[in-house]
């Protein structure tokens, strides 16, 4: 009898270690998170239940330390993309908002953490915090009140709309600006990875900057969390930087290279987003399979009615197609020796936008169709579909939204020159 482990995951590309790690996360999630999953939405502001569970995953399961170099106390797992993909699938199957909080803790560190472009100086300085026994989380602060998609649309807008500035004063950066919505903001962040410009209004890629700002730096303040329709385990607030001074060395790489390796972080975000969609859909599959097996209509299980089988088939197809595409791209990114592109290649950023767009449409469709056949049960919290239905929506909204994802995907495939 097929299970979620029968959906596409090419064994020759995903090692037993990574699969076993996925099962560890799955077991943890079922034992530790499932019992409170239906109550997480009430914890959106204070994270009293959520924060200890973040520590269990990030510290006790070693996710925070997984990709840091050994010299910084990390586990230094090679080929991070398959591992991140499995982590995202398994955590999102349990709660995609929680998954976001976990992976975003290290997302902003990708430009300095992943080979071959590590910044060992910064890894040695900050790595021990991530690899220690206390919870330490970072927040990748990109979006601003006036501009989200514009900032991420680096290929056309070139960073011209970035309002957060970094000015060099001797050996210190002075950061000024306002960010909104980043995951792990508010009281959670210990370290901000701030996307800023060294010259407001500039389209010069050298002016695009990523700078580390410890959350307890003078001049950093944050607002109260926003209450969202879902993804309650993902804490999002405003963050203000007012004449914040940090050492010059806290810029991740330098002119040109910040932008270059940020692209890899965006590609990782698109792959991770897709994996979250797959994880959600796999749980939807589990729920709807059980429901349509046990529920009887007109004397037979719901799934034995052809109109229901149509829906069930579509959900399975959405999972298989998304998985197949996702793992193919993971393979391409992991094997530049075969496919010829480095992970920070702009073409990957553009292509994976299409994947992420497809996945966000797929999960929206899967959740909605599943609910159609569960009636009021699907709409009630106790049956878990409605939480996925609410949570998944933001996956299509973040990272530039469906508009930007559509444009950038078309830009790649059709050589668009003005869009």
């Amino acid at each position: 009898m097929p299970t979620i482990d029968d959906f596409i995951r090419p064994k020759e590309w995903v090692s037993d270690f990574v699969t076993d790690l996925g099962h560890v996360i799955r077991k943890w999630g079922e034992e530790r998170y499932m019992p409170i999953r239906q109550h997480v939405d009430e914890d959106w502001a204070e994270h009293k239940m959520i924060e200890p569970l973040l520590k269990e995953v990030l510290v006790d399961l070693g996710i925070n330390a997984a990709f840091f170099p050994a010299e910084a106390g990390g586990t230094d797992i090679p080929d991070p993309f398959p591992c991140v993909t499995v982590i995202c699938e398994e955590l999102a199957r349990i709660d995609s908002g929680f998954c976001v909080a976990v992976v975003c803790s290290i997302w902003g560190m990708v430009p300095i953490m992943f080979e071959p472009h590590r910044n060992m100086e910064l890894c040695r300085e900050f790595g021990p915090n991530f690899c220690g026994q206390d919870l330490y989380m970072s927040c990748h602060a990109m979006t601003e009140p006036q501009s989200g998609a514009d900032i991420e649309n680096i290929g056309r807008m070139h960073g011209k709309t970035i309002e957060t500035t970094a000015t060099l004063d001797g050996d210190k950066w002075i950061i000024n600006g306002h960010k909104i919505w980043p995951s792990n903001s508010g009281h959670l962040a210990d370290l901000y990875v701030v996307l800023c410009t060294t010259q407001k209004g500039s389209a010069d890629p050298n002016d695009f900057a990523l700078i580390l700002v410890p959350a307890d730096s003078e001049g950093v303040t944050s607002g109260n969390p926003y209450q969202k329709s879902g993804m309650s385990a993902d804490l999002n607030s405003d963050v203000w930087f007012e004449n914040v001074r940090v050492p010059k060395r806290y810029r991740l790489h330098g002119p040109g290279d910040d932008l270059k390796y940020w692209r890899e972080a965006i590609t990782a975000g698109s792959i991770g987003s897709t994996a979250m969609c797959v994880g959600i859909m796999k749980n939807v599959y589990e729920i709807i399979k059980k429901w349509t097996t046990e529920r009887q209509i007109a004397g037979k299980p719901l799934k034995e009615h052809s109109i229901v089988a149509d829906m069930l088939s579509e959900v399975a197809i959405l999972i298989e197609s998304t998985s197949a595409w996702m793992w193919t791209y993971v393979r391409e990114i992991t094997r530049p020796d075969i496919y010829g592109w480095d992970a920070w290649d702009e073409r990957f950023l553009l292509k994976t936008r299409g994947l992420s767009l497809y996945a966000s449409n797929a999960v929206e469709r899967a959740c909605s169709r599943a609910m159609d056949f569960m009636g009021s049960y699907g709409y009630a919290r106790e049956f878990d579909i409605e939480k996925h239905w609410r949570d998944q929506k933001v996956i299509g909204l973040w990272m530039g939204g469906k508009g930007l994802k559509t444009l950038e995907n078309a830009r790649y495939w059709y050589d668009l020159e003005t869009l």
Partner: protein
Amino acid sequence: MAVLYPSNEWCQEWKNVINNSDAAKDVGKDWGEDFNGNWIFEITPGGGLDKTTYVYLEAKSGECTDARLIDDPSEVEVGFYCTGSYENFKAAVKGEKDFIQGVVRGTFKLKGNMMKIMKYGGFIRVVANSLQGIDSGFLGE
């Protein structure tokens, strides 16, 4: 003078290197405290090794309390069981192959509490890196 890998003499050298490591004591101080932190390394034949050989490593609280060859895995109770070919283990001992990378990529098959592997990845790496501190000799070389 080089000690032959694998042999009981080599195991003693490994034990000494681990126990002389401040890093091991530091990052491994909680290793094995509430779980079995002992290992068997099953080395499969090839490259001059003519029969399967088992290296037993007893580790707790950042120290190695025993390291030796055993005839049969059933002689001891371990929390971690790692299998690999002689050629691959030789490469790891020489420092030519990274042990953790080998585990992640499937060169070495590792069974055990994955949660502990992830949580104590730093300690495992220190123990793996300690292999290069042994003056090792190899079959056929």
